[in-house]
């Protein structure tokens, strides 16, 4: 077995390394103007600023999966705030501060608008790319339309600006890049960083853990927009020129290209590539103007096609291969400890779940009609019925207020109304999907912590050593052997282990009503027995109400306390196990073969 370390030990070691790198970076930045020629200093100021935005693009895209083409527009908003203020007002500390404030506020407001548009519940993942693309187009046209005020297509130049030497700007921009990269690095390695990756990996699963994905992504977008705007402000302050091209879609795409070249999800790679490419471009644009861009474009295609992880990681793995160090990296995983039992204020006699005349229709097609039943704690209700009976649709109607077209769903005495899944979860709902829905890129420990984040907030700068799990979740983790695999990346788990992990994750948020869509599909007989035993225990010892969709009738018969039979979107039978199993009606509609229900498989 591998040597497993605690996250805090690992972080401490990493932070020492980071501190050394930051010091080296700051020394280089401080000494740069003393050894570099004037032209290089001037170019590097711009390159450093671009590097900072590339870092924000990487956090958005590389870690969280939000592909924005409009980060250029936020950069240009900052630049124009500076340019417009200094062109139209006499320069003074007050004006400079007001301009800076305007740069941040406008970027923040525009980013909020974009987030509101782009992270709505029903739109596709690509939509944020569309909106940011449109943002950059609109920005350029607004500048064109601004006439003399914005300088139209020729931009603004020659305004009075800060009385700072190029060396000072170099140090400001360089230190800014070092600080932003370091802060970003700490952030993505924190527990919150795992959350970003989990959003990239499976947004729906996150929402069903009660995480407000739209707010997380919106918050990141706003923060990145403000950093980009700040960089733009510095750009205009130093260069004394702003142009509409700063905000166009081509520049927005170039930022994405740098991130892809440097290695998405590596932070340092994009920062280095942005600085290098911009710096070299400035030198070569004189001698080889078009060839250079041609090379960048061609290299970009090759990298995307052949090494999607980017140049940085490709280089690192090449070096690793050449020095042929054993690949066994140190495993890191948190300790599992039992969570304190939370006192529930809900009266035990309140039904866990009540459905009243729930219906779902697609146009004139009625998938569900008149579904009314009540589920109490300590009940394990199996929903059975042939394919197409509406079982999964019913689960969706219970867990997402937008889904049903009529009727009422009440969780622990509270009507779910039109609540989104993440808010239904707050009412005590847990849902396990049919196919194992997990976060492939995280470790088992990280997954459990993300799943628990609604109850124990994640730190944006450190990693907790302990994961507190309720007894039910601990029981699953221990009984299925996941405890020995805490440091394993989820993608390497077996199908059964993934099913168990998802169940443990759902239980980690301490639901009252647990909905399971064929939790034993694809499992071996022994695995199924373990899961069945756990489910019965959850009901008996932990007071859960479980709604189970299952096709394996022998399994259903063994563990259920009650069975509801759905047929063509209606409840045809609702009763005790023996009553339902021995019903002729059920035998006929479910299988067409009267003996199938009675015999164990």
């Amino acid at each position, binding site marked *: 077995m591998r040597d497993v370390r605690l996250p805090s030990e690992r972080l401490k070691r990493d932070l020492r390394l980071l501190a050394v790198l930051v010091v080296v970076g700051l020394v280089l930045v401080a000494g740069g103007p003393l050894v570099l020629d004037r032209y290089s200093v001037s170019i590097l100021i711009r390159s450093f600023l671009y590097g900072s935005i590339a870092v924000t693009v990487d956090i958005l895209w590389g870690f969280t999966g939000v*592909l924005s083409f409009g980060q250029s527009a936020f950069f240009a908003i900052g630049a124009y705030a500076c340019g417009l203020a200094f062109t139209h007002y006499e320069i003074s500390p007050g004006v400079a501060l007001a301009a800076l404030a305007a740069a941040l506020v406008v970027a923040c407001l525009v980013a909020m608008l974009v987030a509101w*548009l782009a992270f*709505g519940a*029903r*739109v*596709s993942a*690509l*939509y944020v*790319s*569309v*909106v940011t*693309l*449109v943002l950059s*187009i*609109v920005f350029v*046209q607004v500048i*064109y*339309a601004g006439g003399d005020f914005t300088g139209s297509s020729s931009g603004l130049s020659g305004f009075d600006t800060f009385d700072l030497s190029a060396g000072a700007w170099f140090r400001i921009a360089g230190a800014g890049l070092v600080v932003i990269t370091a802060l970003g690095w700490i952030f993505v390695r924190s527990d919150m960083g795992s959350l970003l990756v989990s959003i990239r990996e499976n947004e729906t699963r996150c929402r069903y853990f009660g995480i407000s994905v739209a707010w997380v992504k919106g918050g990141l977008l706003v923060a990145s927009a403000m950093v980009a705007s700040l960089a733009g402000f510095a750009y205009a302050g130093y260069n004394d020129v702003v142009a509409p091209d700063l905000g166009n*879609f*081509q520049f927005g*795409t170039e930022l*994405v*290209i740098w991130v*892809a070249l440097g290695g998405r999800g590596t932070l340092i790679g994009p920062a280095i590539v942005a600085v290098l490419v911009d710096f070299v471009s400035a030198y070569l644009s004189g001698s080889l103007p*078009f*060839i250079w*861009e*041609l090379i*960048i*474009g*061609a290299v*970009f*295609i090759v990298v*995307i*096609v*052949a090494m*999607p992880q980017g140049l940085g990681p490709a280089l690192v793995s090449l070096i690793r291969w050449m020095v042929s160090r054993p690949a066994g990296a140190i495993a890191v995983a948190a300790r599992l400890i039992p969570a304190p039992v939370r006192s529930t204020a809900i009266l035990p006699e309140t039904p866990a779940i009540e459905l009243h005349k729930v219906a779902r229709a697609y146009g004139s097609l009625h998938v569900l009609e008149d579904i009314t039943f009540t589920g109490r704690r300590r009940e394990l209700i199996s929903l059975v019925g042939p394919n197409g009976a509406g079982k999964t649709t019913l689960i969706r109607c219970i867990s997402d207020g937008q889904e049903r077209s009529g009727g009422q769903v009440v969780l622990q005495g509270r009507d779910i109304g039109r609540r989104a899944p993440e808010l239904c979860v707050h009412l005590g709902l847990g849902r396990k999907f049919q196919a194992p829905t997990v976060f492939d890129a995280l470790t088992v420990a990280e997954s459990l912590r993300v799943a628990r984040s609604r109850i124990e907030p994640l730190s944006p700068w450190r990693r907790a050593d302990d994961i507190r799990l309720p007894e039910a979740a601990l029981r699953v983790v221990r009984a299925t052997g996941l405890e020995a695999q805490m440091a394993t990346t989820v993608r390497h788990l077996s199908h059964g282990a993934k099913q168990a992990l998802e169940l443990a994750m759902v239980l980690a948020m301490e639901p009252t009503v647990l909905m399971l869509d064929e939790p034993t599909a694809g499992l071996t007989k022994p695995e199924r027995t373990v899961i069945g035993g756990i489910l019965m225990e959850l009901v008996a010892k932990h007071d859960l109400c479980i709604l189970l969709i299952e096709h394996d009738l022998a399994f259903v018969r063994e563990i259920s306390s009650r069975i509801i039979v759905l047929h063509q979107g209606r409840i045809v039978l609702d009763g005790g196990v023996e009553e339902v199993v021995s019903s002729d009606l059920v035998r006929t509609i479910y299988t067409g073969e009267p003996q199938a229900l009675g015999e164990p498989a």
Partner: protein
Amino acid sequence: MNNLLLDVVTTAGILFVVAVGLLVVFGVLKIINFAHGGFLTIGGYAALIVTQLHWSPWAAPPVALILGILLGMLVERLIVRPLYSRPLDAILATWGLSIVVVQLITIGFGRGTEFVLSPLQGAVALLGTSYSLYRLAMLVVALVIGGAIAGILQGTRLGLAARAVIMNETLAQSLGINSALVRFATFSVGAGLATMAGSLITPLLSIDPLMGVPWLLNAFMLVMVSGTSLVSLAVASLVLGGAQVVVSTYGNPVLGALTIVVLAALLLRIRPTGFARA
């Protein structure tokens, strides 16, 4: 008023011609070909070469079409095929290709603005107004292209295979349809349609290495709201193109340039399926 009406329908025709190649590729391959703008530019320069060789301007569209199909074959094989399972990366790689195309054209032809001859000159009297013959011809071209694609989809084996791949690729494969070949053929045709569109729009405006970008953006938004349906694309071109004409005529050209992208983005927010039937 009649002039405005003709502007609306001919603009819709032009937009349809420009976007249809992107739609075809998106429909079958489920990837957005950001090199579409590059192909449009190549088509424009193909028309320029035809003009410079003193060939008949009628030769430009077929020359562009053939050139585009050949280039499309090459690009599908080398760049697009490895990225089928990574649609977002395909957007980026094809955008990289667009950059390469723009730089190659800049190296070859310079950054200057060029003009080509129009095969159809002059105006024709229609609905009580005198209207550009070429713009009217574009409407006919749009109808012909739309009809031809619909005909291929409905009436040929390749079309049947393409429809099967559009609906359910895995099932199509398991039924013995060579979906790799369908993708290859579709991408090549899509590229050819783009270059042909590039050559067709050049008589209406000037040619420069970056001419493809604004068209790409409009075409991209139109395809986003149309999904994979030719009819939806026609409707989207008519509605959004019409809005653009109206805004440019009664509002101002800057707003007009934004009309399609902004309206399409808002439409997608309100109705994620756009003009496509859900």
